[in-house]
C-alpha cells in the first residue's frame, strides 16, 4: 500500500538538544500508526513536524508524495496533546467555529453523532468532563473530513472507562478508511488500536513493525508461572532456569511442550499454572531500557 505520509531523515535540533535525530517513516494509507516512547523521546516533536506545526531542522516530510503545502491544512485533522478552546462558547458553537475555518466539512449532525456529543451540545466547553472534552477535540479534528488524522496522547488523564470509550471512537473513525497517527503512553492502547508501531528513544526509532511481529522478534519464548507452594524443590535446580518472582516461580522457555513434560515428570502440580505472553510493555522496557510510566 502506498504511503500517505513519509518522513526522510527528519531532524529537529534545539540549542543543546537534538530532539529528533534522523527519523525515517512511511505510513501506509488506512492504518493506525502508533508512535511510542518514554517521556522526552521526541514523539511530540516528531508528530508536530509531520503535522507541519514545527519546521524540521533537517529532512523532508511528504504528504501523498508532495511537500506539505497550503492544501495540507485542509486535508489533515489534528488533536494536540495540550490545547485550549475559545472560552465562553458552547460545544455546538465551538463546532460551528471550526467548521467555518475549512472549505470542505462533514455535516455537523454527522460529527455530533459520530463523536456522541448530542447530550452536551449546549454546554459551555469549560464545563464538560475530560472524556467529553477529548471527544469534542476529536470532533474538531474530524470536522474537515480529513484523510490523515494526528492524535497526540488523546487519552492521557482519562479514566479507564472513558479511555475505552475513546478507543471505540477511534476504531469507528479508522473503519471509515482514515489514516491515524497516534502517540500514546499506554501500551494497552497501542496494542488495541495500532496496526503498526514505532518505538522511539532519544530521538530515534529503535523498533518498528506490527505489534505481533515485534513481540515475536524480541521474545521467542514464553513464561510459565507456578505458585511457590506447587513448585516443589526440584524446580530451583539449574536445569529449569527458574527465577523467583514474589509468590511465583517463573520459567522462561522456548520449548513449551518439552518443559511441560518435564514438569509433569517431576510431579509438579499444574492446576494453577499460568502461561504469560509477552506484552508491548515488556517490549518497551526491552528496547528502551526504561520502565514504562504512564
Amino acid at each position: 500500500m502506498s504511503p500517505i505520509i513519509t518522513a526522510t531523515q527528519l531532524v529537529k535540533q534545539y540549542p543543546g538538544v537534538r530532539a529528533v535525530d534522523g527519523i525515517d517513516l512511511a505510513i501506509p494509507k488506512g492504518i493506525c500508526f502508533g508512535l511510542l516512547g518514554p517521556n522526552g523521546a521526541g514523539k511530540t516533536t516528531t508528530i508536530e513536524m509531520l503535522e507541519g506545526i514545527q519546521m524540521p531542522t533537517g529532512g523532508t516530510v511528504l504528504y501523498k508524495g508532495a511537500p506539505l503545502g497550503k492544501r495540507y491544512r485542509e486535508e489533515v485533522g489534528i488533536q494536540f496533546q495540550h490545547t485550549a478552546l475559545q472560552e465562553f462558547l458552547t460545544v455546538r458553537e465551538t463546532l460551528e467555529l471550526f467548521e467555518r475555518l475549512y472549505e470542505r466539512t462533514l455535516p455537523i449532525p454527522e460529527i455530533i453523532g459520530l463523536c456522541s456529543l448530542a447530550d452536551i451540545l449546549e454546554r459551555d466547553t469549560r464545563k464538560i468532563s475530560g472524556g467529553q472534552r477529548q471527544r469534542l477535540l476529536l470532533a474538531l479534528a474530524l470536522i474537515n473530513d480529513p484523510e490523515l488524522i494526528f492524535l497526540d496522547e488523546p487519552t492521557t488523564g482519562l479514566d479507564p472507562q472513558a479511555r475505552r470509550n475513546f478507543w471505540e471512537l477511534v476504531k469507528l473513525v479508522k473503519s471509515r478508511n482514515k489514516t491515524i497517527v497516534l502517540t500514546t503512553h499506554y501500551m494497552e492502547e497501542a496494542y488495541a488500536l495500532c496496526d503498526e508501531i514505532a518505538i522511539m528513544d532519544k530521538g530515534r526509532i529503535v523498533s518498528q513493525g506490527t505489534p505481533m511481529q515485534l513481540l515475536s522478534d524480541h521474545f521467542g519464548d514464553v513464561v510459565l508461572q507456578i505458585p511457590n507452594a506447587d513448585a516443589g524443590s526440584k524446580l530451583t535446580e539449574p536445569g529449569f532456569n527458574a527465577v523467583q518472582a514474589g509468590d511465583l516461580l517463573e520459567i522462561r522457555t522456548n520449548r513449551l511442550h518439552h518443559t511441560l513434560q518435564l514438569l509433569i515428570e517431576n510431579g509438579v502440580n499444574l492446576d494453577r499454572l499460568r502461561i504469560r505472553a509477552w506484552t508491548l510493555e515488556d517490549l518497551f522496557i526491552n528496547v528502551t531500557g526504561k520502565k514504562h510510566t504512564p
Partner: protein
Amino acid sequence: MRKFLAVLHARNMEFLRDRSALVWNLAMPFMLVFGLAFTFSGGSKDIYKIGIVGGIEKLHSVAPALQSTQHLQFIPYDELNAAIGKVKHHQMDMLIDVGGAPKYWVNSSSPNGYLLERIIRGVEGDRFERQVVEGAEIRYVDWFLPGILGMNMMFACLFGVGFVIVRYRKNGFLKRLKATPLGAFQFLFAQLVSRLLLIMVITTIVYTGCNFFIDFNMQGSYWTLLLVTTLGAMCMISIGMLIAAHTASEELAGGMLNVVTWPMMLLSGAWFSLEGAQIWVQKLALIFPLTHMVSAARAIMNEGATLSQVMPHVWVLGITSVIFIAIGAYVFKWE
C-alpha cells in the same frame, strides 16, 4: 505553610528567570519617576496664561515690566485667529500682539482676564490697545470629555487585544488555530474588527448616556468625530496587536503595554493641557496616537473644527494604523 513557601519560591524563580519581564518591571518605574521629574521640573507655579503673538522675544522691549511680573506664563502663538479662539473659549486668559502696535485681547466674561487687564494697566500704563472678545467658557467637563473617552478607549484597545492574544498563545488556542487553514492576517483582522466594534459601541453608549445629563458642547460634526475616534481606536488596537505579536509572557506583554500607556496617559493632553509644557515635550507627545485623537476630538467638539482642519491628525492615525497592522501580521507567531 510548607506548601505556601514552595509555591512562593517557585513563583519567585519563575519571575526572576523571565529576564525580559524582569527588565521591564525594573525599568518602568525608573523611567516614570525620572521622566515625570524631568518633564514637570523647574519654575514656579504660574497663575495666569498669556498668549503672545509676534515673537515672545519682542515682549521684553515692548512690555518689560509685564514680562518681569511673577506668576504669569507667556505662551507663544503663530496664528492670531487660533489664539483669539483660545481667549474666546477661556482656554487662555489674555492674548497680547507685540508684532505691530501693542494690543491685547480679553474675554469680557473672564475673571482672570479682568485681573490681568488691571495688572497690565498698572505696570505698563495705557500703551496697549484693548480688544474685547465674547464667548462662553468651555466647561472643564467639555474640555475633559475627549480625554476621558480617549483614555478609556486606549486601555480597552491596548490591554483588551494585547492580553487576550498573549493568553491565547499561552494556553495553546493559537496553536490549535494554526492547525487550521486560518491565516495570521485573518485572525488579527478579526480581533481588530471585533474590538473596534465593541469599543465604538461602548464609547457611543457612554457619550450618549452622559450627554443626556450633562449636555456636552458639540460645535462640529458627529461624523467627523466618529471618523477620528474610529481611526484612533484602530491605531491603538494595532499597537496592542503589535506588542502581542510575538510573546507568550503575560508579564512581558503587561510591561510593554504599560510602557506605551503611561506616557500616553501623561503626555497626550488627556488629563491636562500641554500648552505650558516645554517644546520638546509637546513634540514628543505628537508620536502618541492618543494625542492626535484627543486633540482632533477637542477641536471638533469645542471649536467646531471641520474634517479638513483635523486632516493632519486623521492622516497620522490612519497611516500609523496600517503600518502597525502590517508589521504585527508579519511578525505574528502562533506559538
